[in-house]
């Protein structure tokens, strides 16, 4: 019926129809929006572990009322992004600290993913009700500084209570900017490659002598596939974090201004030879059927492909040494670890990934002091040893490593040794300290999507792809810098 002849009858009926169906309709819409809420759990796993916040974004605890400071009892909140077993471990640590320390109680809460924790913390600082300690991922460092919402921990922890000489510089350096330590490294890791020892042997490769170079990985993969032991040679998540590690190994800073540490970064180095080395090799691996593409930041899928024997080699994080070993055992093969493969002869070290603990500004004095106590306690060798051996995350204290060494831990667990050797072999330079930039998250997405564009059917060649990554990233930097000024 046309609108012109629209009698009141039409209108009423339409309204009625919408009225009667609206109940179900609204219920349906509510369902839709509810689901999209659930969907906002993040796909971006943190850089280091598939079971960090990512998998458990849903079970955010309801915020308890502002803990009160009554008498000598101080209650502080610790917001973190660790789910699953790691989250439980943090709860245990918080409870132990509360039991051992008079007058301080720590309430640990998982605030979702890394990014959600950062967002929640800065919002809470604005609202004047921040937690005393917040876990923030490494690429949020520049953002956290620019937000002005945090106090460097050097001002939180009393100078006479801490001797930074006992800390691992290779871990601390990432978070030390202009000589000031802004946050306490908590879960630090870098990239490491795992391999299937049994598959290597089956293919006639030396099970104790894994490849160490780009070419070595390619030829080992070819042997594995030719012998029919694996579908493809290797896999790792399409994650910019690996690219950043390979930049460091080749002593190539990611951005200018000494990787953003001498001033605000304005240029990115994707048109460098180092970038070309990485992406030529990576696309070549794919085109030769030697790289299984698990998807963007697909930690879980990459791990699954490796554990089910589809590939013989896996690029992953040191933070998963313990669980990976378990997984290999369940799937009936022996796990080996190898240092990050590099282009011929260029091994300068890796950068730290993971997260650190920040203390927001605007806390009351007792809370600040309590936060300092908690951070000090966490970095004691006993806690650090447990943290390290249960996960694979690096300890921050030199003593933790030397104690474990004399206890023979690394002899019994050679996989952990690979990780710690790689960390110790790292030479301090702007490249290995890691990049600082505000739009790091965006740059990572650009890099990952850039790689996909190089392996697509109507692909752009590596040169052009890198140029595109370079342009887009610099635009992002420019936008960000303009906003900050």
């Amino acid at each position: 019926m046309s609108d012109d002849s629209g009698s009141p009858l039409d209108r009423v009926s339409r309204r009625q129809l919408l009225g009667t169906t609206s109940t179900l309709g609204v219920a349906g819409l509510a369902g839709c929006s509810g689901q999209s809420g659930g969907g906002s759990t993040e796909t971006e796993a943190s850089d280091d572990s598939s079971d960090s916040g990512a998998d458990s974004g849903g079970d955010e605890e309801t915020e308890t009322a502002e803990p009160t400071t009554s008498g000598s009892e101080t209650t502080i909140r610790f917001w973190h992004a660790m789910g699953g077993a790691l989250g439980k471990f943090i709860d245990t640590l918080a409870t132990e600290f509360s039991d051992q320390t008079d007058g301080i109680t720590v309430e640990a809460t998982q605030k979702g993913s890394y990014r959600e924790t950062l967002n929640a913390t800065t919002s809470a600082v604005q609202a004047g009700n921040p937690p005393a300690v917040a876990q923030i991922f490494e690429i949020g460092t520049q953002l956290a500084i620019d937000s002005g919402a945090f106090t460097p921990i050097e001002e939180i922890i009393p100078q006479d209570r801490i001797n930074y000489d006992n800390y691992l510089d290779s871990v601390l350096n990432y978070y030390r900017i202009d000589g000031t330590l802004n946050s306490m490294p908590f879960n630090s890791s870098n990239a490491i490659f795992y391999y299937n020892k049994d598959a290597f042997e089956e293919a006639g490769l030396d099970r104790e002598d894994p490849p160490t170079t780009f070419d070595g990985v390619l030829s080992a993969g070819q042997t594995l596939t030719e012998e029919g032991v694996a579908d493809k040679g290797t896999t790792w998540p399409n994650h910019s974090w690996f690219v950043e590690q390979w930049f460091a190994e080749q002593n190539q800073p990611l951005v200018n201004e000494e990787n953003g540490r001498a001033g605000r970064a304005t240029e990115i180095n994707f048109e460098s030879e180092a970038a070309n080395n990485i992406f030529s090799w990576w696309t070549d691996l794919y085109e030769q059927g030697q790289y299984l593409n698990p998807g963007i930041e697909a930690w879980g899928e990459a791990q699954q492909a490796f554990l089910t024997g589809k590939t013989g080699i896996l690029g992953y994080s040191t933070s998963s040494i313990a669980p990976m070993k378990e997984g290999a055992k369940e799937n009936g093969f022996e796990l080996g670890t190898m240092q990050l493969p590099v282009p011929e002869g260029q091994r300068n070290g890796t950068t730290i990934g993971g997260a650190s603990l920040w203390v927001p500004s605007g806390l009351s004095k007792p809370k600040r002091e309590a936060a300092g106590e908690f951070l000090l306690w966490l970095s004691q060798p006993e806690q650090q040893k447990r943290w390290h051996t249960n996960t694979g995350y690096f300890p921050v204290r030199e003593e933790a490593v030397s104690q474990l060494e004399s206890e023979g831990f690394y002899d019994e667990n050679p996989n952990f040794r690979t990780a710690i050797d790689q960390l110790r072999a790292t030479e301090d330079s702007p490249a290995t300290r890691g990049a600082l930039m505000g739009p790091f998250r965006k740059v990572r997405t650009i890099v990952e999507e850039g790689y996909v564009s190089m392996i697509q059917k109507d692909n752009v060649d590596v040169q052009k792809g890198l140029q595109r990554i370079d342009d887009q990233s610099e635009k992002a930097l420019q936008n960000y810098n303009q906003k900050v000024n």
Partner: protein
Amino acid sequence: MTETTKPYDSTLGAALLLLPTLVVLVVFLYYPALLTFRLSLFQTLLLGTERAFVGLENYVGLLGSGAYHGSFLISVAFAATVVLGTLVVSLFVAYLLFQVEVGESTYLVAAIWPYALPTAVAGTVLLFLLHPTLGIITHYVEALTGVELDWFTSGPLAFLVVALSAVWKQLGYNIVFLVAALNNVPTTLTESAKLDGVGHLRLLRRVYLPLISPTLVFLVVVNTIYAFFGAFPLVDLMTSGGPSGATNLLIFKLYRDAFEFSSLGSAAAQSVVLFVVVALLMWVQLRVSDRYMHYGA
């Protein structure tokens, strides 16, 4: 119909009863919408810790952004595919359900089942089932047809996978309404048509479709909203908008700009544009359909 009795004598009483609903709408919809509009005029750092008024600059930026244009076109194409696909498939299934005489409720439950699954869960499960190298469905499809289904690197394939998942997810909802609408068609019409020897498909097209058109219009509107807003978890979990932006729907893009890339102002502007587009679209849908709709069966 023209002479309806008023259920309430006092306007004040009616207003009072409407008040709770209005309060909820104002507090949770209108006020945040206004704030979003305000935010779209600012440039922000992080979640608004620092903000500067920039007027319409965010909107101007969108006008000149190639990525935004691409995302816009993809969203429209996606909505068209999903709305059409959902309606056609669910109409067909609902018609079969309407005609089947044995075990009707079992079929109905089976058809509605996917709707009971939260989209986020569906996205996670589908990703593993359809994964180009690890997925069991992909494995058998590739083995049977010999076609390579690498939707991680093929844009059109990725678009298709997400669209099909979205259609599948929305089928149940459509089928419930369509079966109900079909059951409301007077049986006398079916009987006389059958006496005249009208075939099944013709019966559907010439008799049922006009009579259930109000429900169809309602579903078009709901499906449109779903296609623009509800498919977010699928994109987020399955493709992250890739490859090369092939599934970068507006709703996903604005979410990512806001919460991952910390451009809250620009994301707010995108949100306002999206709202206006969908509102306009619905207005057009209702206007156009008014001409063809058949009420008062």
